[in-house]
């Protein structure tokens, strides 16, 4: 099409560069030191010595194995609960209620959710207080290792409650592309129970659409750092936590070891993904086996009950956790068996605020800027797609997901090395750019569906009225898509606020955000201060979503056609 938006043709290549450039250079920058090459530290020749050193680290295989298990179990439980709940309740009023309850949970950063969980279930946590001493007879917290347990059960629970909202919303986004209402009716009229109908008829096409998002969950859970620091085991910690320790080692030669470890992390995540594909095969085979026998499986209530329970529990844990965080942040004296603090005070906030100002400013600036850039690029890419009429196929979707599937830590190490060499280390620009690598995919995924679903006839009418493409975009399409654009912005903002690892590595302690400060408090265990930081971390994205909801309502208060 002639006369498109002038700069739009530059957007797709630029977007690809931002998605793949850091990934490629980062991986290279990790791989070279892993093989002993890092001239700044005297590594001038290739060697496999760092790997030999890595293999000799005590407990390294246990750490690696633990990461694989965490990735698989987390994904299996979260996906199982989501699929089970959709199967069991699709189309009911309970389903609509769950949808409204769970959407805000997506914006809660992982670290805040993890702290909330810890504050609930720790031996001196709220749940134990609620049943003490009247039920347990305890006057002191029991000596149990619940948080940081060696089997990482608590860590998996913390990941599951946060991955459930993600997978649920991804599934909800894919549902309209299936004929789900009729398919469910048809299956049940053939005598199949709800679960069987869903598993045999709806799940196969649905899963194909959400598969990359599921891969992202597997990869994330195998390589997560912040949740592991807060909830994960200590002896030995999971692989990513050990990598961070080596990376922060004052002895700089530990970088070789860290880089070799980062490549091991890449292999661990790849192994988990291969294992997941194996599980997919086994699951598919079981479904076919049952389906081919025509089993109706009508007595499915235990499974329905279980998936509902897990869904409700995850909502309760995140909301309950946030409430406890808030309570601790304003608590005065709060001794063990008491269910509520004996005094309420703003002292923790007053003390924290002066120190919070700088991290808060950095958080807002980085999130705001990276989101703005991501939005502009996404809109121009989608406009370009509209003008050329060429949709981005499966390949493009994979490229967008790639930064979410390759473990952050494996290429962030290399990027850090690179940024030091380029003199960009701890610079604001480098921080924004690294956040952009993760913000951009989410903004794109969030905006592309409503953009493509937008009625093209409005654009044709605009052209018919003599508007240029640029004018039609600004005067017609963008205003009509205000709600979707602001939602995508809120998603991008909350992704940026939640970033821990890129901020720690690129900000290098000189540029800190609310998230890095909060996670750094994990080891200290001062609940009042953690309460302040984690609660603040959780409400920033929440405000972003509140604005995204309120502004269109205000702008279009006299436009019935643009209401939800």
């Amino acid at each position, binding site marked *: 099409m002639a006369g498109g938006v002038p700069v739009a043709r530059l957007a797709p290549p630029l977007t690809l560069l931002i998605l793949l450039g850091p990934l490629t250079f980062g991986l290279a920058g990790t791989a070279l030191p892993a093989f002993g090459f890092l001239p700044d530290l005297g590594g001038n020749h290739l060697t496999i010595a760092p790997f030999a050193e890595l293999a000799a680290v005590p407990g390294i295989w246990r750490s690696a194995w633990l990461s694989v298990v965490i990735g698989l179990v987390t994904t299996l439980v979260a996906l199982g609960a989501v699929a089970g709940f959709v199967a069991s309740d699709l189309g*009911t*009023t309970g389903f609509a209620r769950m949808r409204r309850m769970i959407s805000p949970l997506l914006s809660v950063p992982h670290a805040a959710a993890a702290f909330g969980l810890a504050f609930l279930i720790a031996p001196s946590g709220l749940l134990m207080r609620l049943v003490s001493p009247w039920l347990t007879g305890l006057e002191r917290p029991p000596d149990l290792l619940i948080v940081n347990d060696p089997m990482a059960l608590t860590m998996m629970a913390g990941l599951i409650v946060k991955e459930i909202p993600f997978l649920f919303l991804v599934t909800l986004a894919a549902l309209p592309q299936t*004929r789900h209402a*009729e*398919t469910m*009716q*048809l299956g*049940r*009229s*053939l*005598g*199949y*129970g*709800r679960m069987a*109908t869903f598993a*045999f*008829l709806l799940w*196969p*096409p649905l899963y194909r659409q959400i598969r990359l998002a599921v891969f992202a969950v597997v990869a994330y859970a195998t390589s997560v750092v912040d949740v592991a620091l807060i909830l994960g085991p200590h002896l030995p910690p999971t692989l990513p936590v050990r990598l961070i320790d080596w990376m922060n080692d004052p002895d700089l030669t530990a970088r070789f070891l860290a880089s070799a470890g980062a490549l091991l992390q890449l292999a661990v995540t790849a192994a988990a993904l291969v294992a997941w594909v194996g599980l997919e095969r086994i699951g598919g085979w079981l479904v076919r086996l049952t*389906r*081919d*026998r*025509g*089993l*109706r499986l*009508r007595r499915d209530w235990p499974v329905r009950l279980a998936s509902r329970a897990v869904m409700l529990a995850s909502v309760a844990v995140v909301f309950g956790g946030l409430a406890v965080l808030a309570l601790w942040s304003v608590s005065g004296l709060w001794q063990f068996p008491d269910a509520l603090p004996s005094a309420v005070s703003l002292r923790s906030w007053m003390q924290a605020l002066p120190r919070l100002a700088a991290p808060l400013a950095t958080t807002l600036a980085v999130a705001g800027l990276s989101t703005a850039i991501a939005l502009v690029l996404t809109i121009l890419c989608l406009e370009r797609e509209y003008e050329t009429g060429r949709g981005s196929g499966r390949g493009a979707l994979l490229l967008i997901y790639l930064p979410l599937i390759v473990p952050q830590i494996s290429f962030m190490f290399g990027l850090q090395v690179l940024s030091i060499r380029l003199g960009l280390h701890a610079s604001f620009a480098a921080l924004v750019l690294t956040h952009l690598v993760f913000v951009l995919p989410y903004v794109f995924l969030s905006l592309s569906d409503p953009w493509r679903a937008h009625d093209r006839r409005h654009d044709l009418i605009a052209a018919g009225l003599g508007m240029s493409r640029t004018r039609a975009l600004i005067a017609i399409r963008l205003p009509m898509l205000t709600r979707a654009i602001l939602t995508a912005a809120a998603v991008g903002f909350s992704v940026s606020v939640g970033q821990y690892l890129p901020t720690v590595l690129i900000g290098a302690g000189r540029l800190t955000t609310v998230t890095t400060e909060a996670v750094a408090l994990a080891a200290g265990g001062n609940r009042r201060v953690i309460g302040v930081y984690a609660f603040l971390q959780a409400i920033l994205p929440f405000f972003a979503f509140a604005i995204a909801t309120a502004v269109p309502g205000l702008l279009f208060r006299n436009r019935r056609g643009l209401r939800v």
Partner: protein
Amino acid sequence: MDGVTDNQGLVLDGVQIRLGARELVALNARIGRGETLTVMGPSGSGKSTLLACLGGFLDPVFSASGSVVVDGVEITALPAEKRRAGLLFQDPLLFPHLSVADNIAIALPEDIRGRGQRRALALEALADVDLAEFGDRDPDTLSGGQKARVALQRVLASRPRLLLLDEPFSKLDAHLREQTRQMVFDRARRAGLPVVLVTHDEDDARAAGGAVHRVGQP
């Protein structure tokens, strides 16, 4: 009426569907085996709601009363999966991830055991509508008429007690519509199934040949 003995066929006794205070459908009917009741009305009149009610899918915003009895079995309170009420929609709605034969095999009752036997019966059902060679095909590669035939064989393979048709011919072009209509009514008659047809096409009602009930009109 032939085929109707005391408890054969479908009996709708005082079936009434309401949305709040508004009555959408009120109906008494006796539909013998192989006979068709045609329900006509403009869109939004609640005629599809009647089918949802009979199939067991009524949205909880509606309230229904009365009783539905098929061949002497009261199905009013049964969940959808125990009613054996066969459905045909506007679209054939073949399951896109299954082969054409598997689309039919999945409908066969549970008591037909063994993969081999289920597949054989599915292929037989396909041959019955001149689609013998199509068993392993992707349903998406079939023509509109072929899809409609597979959908019909699928619902019959499930051995339903009754058939619920939701404007099943409205999306077919004129020539195909005539042919498909004939085939559906023929086979329902042969299988001795009571049929409830919802449509806004007078030709459908004529072809069905049974009683006509009109809803949503002053």
